[in-house]
């Protein structure tokens, strides 16, 4: 074996340990993954065959019909061949060719390795999903999306860095969660579309039909029993397959880099980049919880109680989903898979280099304001006491106080007269103020992100003397 490329690859990674992208066991394991994909698609082909749907070819291709099942059968055959290739080539990893190509890695990393593009992509993706919900919720499209994401995951496994981050035992449930959340979002749209079509025809929702009472024994208790057995079996298999993580014994003097909170709190840790701990760690979590508890009392819409619908509850569902998908789950992905040493953002195929530098030149609103006027910041004489300092500090931060005051006090009033007019009339003053402040608090995170990226804004109000930074 020629060892020269291996040595140069060590050097380029800046590490003494070899980081092989593919090894015989990786290739062999991927063979199994493709085999599972093959089996899944055989089942889907079988389903398509019985449904008997066709795909219409465009005119330039002859304008005929192909059975959908034929497409899936061809795809399944390719998967089987790919699987066989993996099993038969496992012994010679250095000449293995079915890997994630470098140009694709660079292209993907160019998007995800930047919090701005990542957030823009998740937000645009979210609204595209809402717009294209009719098309996306079709079973064949849903199945194709699942296949695409699984193929992406599988072929990405041929990258060493990707395997390190996705294969960490504690990260496995997060990968699973992404697919599960995606699946249930799909289920929601599938059922909501059906009901929305029915509503347009003046028919009742699916849930209102076939809704006679049945006996709990056997109809419910058997379902519960089967769910319990399935859950137990799954947990046992999971426990056997994956060992619970256990690192070195705790040491108060050896700080790992990065230090991460448990994965379900990584959304909050991500907020720390943009807001100080008193907001990101205390106030916002409390507002999130309080706001969620307030939902039933501020949602005055009587429609959509007990059945899936999107059209009848557009605002409520869009807001909640935006909070859950891009802001909560999206931030967990960012925190888990993309945040590396020194809390820098890394691509999914990028080596976690401790020495990666990111310039941070953030500016406070007060600095923008006073330097923009060509004035120095108002400063109390050195060594003065609290009461002498306070007016200077308040004067210095006046632009920030005005901005926040406008945002939380004046903006609700403006919105009540314009975009939220109907809401204000239906809700009354107290409810409306709670609602509008909750919406504005939720918008505060993306707003600060955009301002940070666009104009390097550090704080609206910066009073480090009192630990009061907003």
């Amino acid at each position: 074996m020629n060892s020269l490329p291996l040595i140069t690859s060590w050097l380029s990674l800046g590490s003494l340990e070899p980081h092989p992208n593919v090894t015989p066991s990786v290739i062999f394991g991927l063979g199994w993954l493709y085999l599972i994909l093959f089996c899944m698609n055989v089942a889907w082909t079988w389903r398509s065959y019985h449904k008997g749907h066709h795909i219409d070819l465009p005119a330039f291709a002859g304008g005929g019909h192909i059975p959908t099942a034929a497409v899936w059968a061809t795809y399944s055959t390719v998967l089987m061949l790919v699987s066989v290739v993996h099993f038969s080539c496992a012994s010679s990893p250095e000449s293995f060719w079915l890997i994630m190509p470098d140009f694709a890695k660079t292209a993907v990393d160019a998007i995800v390795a930047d919090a701005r593009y990542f957030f823009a992509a998740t937000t645009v993706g979210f609204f595209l999903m809402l717009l294209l919900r009719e098309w996306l919720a079709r079973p064949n499209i849903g199945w194709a999306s699942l296949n695409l994401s699984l193929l992406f995951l599988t072929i990405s496994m041929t990258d060493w860095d990707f395997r390190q981050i996705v294969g960490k035992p504690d990260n496995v449930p997060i990968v699973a969660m992404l697919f599960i959340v995606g699946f249930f979002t799909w289920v929601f749209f599938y059922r909501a579309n059906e009901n929305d079509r029915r509503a347009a025809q003046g028919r009742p929702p699916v849930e209102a039909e076939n809704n006679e009472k049945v006996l709990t024994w056997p109809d419910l208790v058997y379902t519960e029993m089967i769910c319990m057995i399935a859950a137990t079996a799954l947990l046992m298999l999971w426990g056997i397959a994956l060992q619970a993580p256990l690192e070195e014994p705790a040491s108060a003097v050896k700080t790992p880099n990065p230090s991460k909170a448990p994965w379900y709190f990584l959304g909050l840790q991500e907020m720390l980049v943009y807001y100080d701990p008193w907001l990101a760690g205390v106030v916002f979590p409390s507002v999130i919880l309080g706001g969620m508890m307030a939902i039933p009392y501020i949602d005055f819409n009587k429609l959509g109680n007990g059945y899936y619908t999107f059209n009848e509850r557009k605002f409520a569902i869009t807001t909640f989903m935006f909070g859950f998908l891009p802001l909560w789950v999206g931030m967990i992905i960012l925190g888990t898979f993309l945040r590396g040493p020194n809390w820098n953002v890394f691509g999914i195929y990028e080596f976690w280099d401790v020495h990666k530098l990111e310039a941070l030149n953030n500016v406070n609103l007060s600095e923008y304001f006073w330097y923009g006027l060509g004035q120095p910041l108002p400063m109390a004489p050195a060594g003065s006491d609290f009461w002498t300092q306070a007016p200077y500090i308040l004067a210095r931060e006046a632009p920030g106080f005005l901005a926040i005051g406008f945002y939380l006090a004046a903006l609700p009033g403006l919105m009540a007269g314009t975009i939220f007019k109907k809401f204000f009339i239906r809700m009354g003053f107290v409810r409306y103020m709670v609602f509008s402040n909750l919406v504005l608090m939720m918008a505060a995170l993306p707003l600060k992100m955009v301002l940070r990226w666009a104009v390097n804004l550090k704080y609206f109000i910066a009073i480090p003397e009192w630990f009061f930074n907003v």
Partner: protein
Amino acid sequence: MSVGDYIRDSQIWKSVFRHPAPYDRRNRVVVMLTNFFLHLHPVSIKQQGIALSYTWCMGGITFFLFLVETITGVLLMFYYRPTLEWAFNDILALRDVTTLGIMREIHRWGAHAMVITVWLHMYRVFLTGSYKPPREFNWVVGVILLKLTLLLSFTGYLLPWDQLAIWAITVGSNMARATPVLGHEGPGFQFLNLGGYDLITNASDARFLLLGSRFVGEETLNRFYILHCVAIPLAAAGLIAIHFWRVRKDGGISQPL
């Protein structure tokens, strides 16, 4: 007479199960009324309220995982000692030598799964509008249960006493020192002072209350152990009871009355 009939005819069996097996309609009704575990359910139920594609079964699985966590947790408590001397070694032994040490794997993966299923349960309840009247209050109870689930997982994270554990808890609990007024690095802590003497210091603030110390140490391990094994599970169990009770009293899991 078959063996099954002989057993079902015995005095012992009849003393436990007060009615014949639920083979006919009448006994399918009475079994729901006379069995302690089954009486959580109503006797009959709307078909759509139990359709898997509607409910996703996530609330039920969350409750089942809570039971799994309780059982595996009690078994782990027989083995694990929450002290600096033993905590890590006991987990190491659970991994390497203890019979049925897989309880720890099931406990940890069950905890991760429970966080995910409780989110999905909330997602389903929101998407079907099931929080709408008359179920507003039960949604509030549910939000508290969600918070308790996260806290259960968070407090349990520390117990293995490895690097992953103490630094995750250090990162998480560092936020508490920035609590407004009650944290020694939070805005407004200066207001709580008596005659120039600060009441809120790093040895008396919200973070100290959580950790029992100025850093994540043995007191923290003890505090989190008790929160994880006793305090939060009791609170959660009580709220789960209320949650289920209200599902019944509010007319099922979903749909207007």
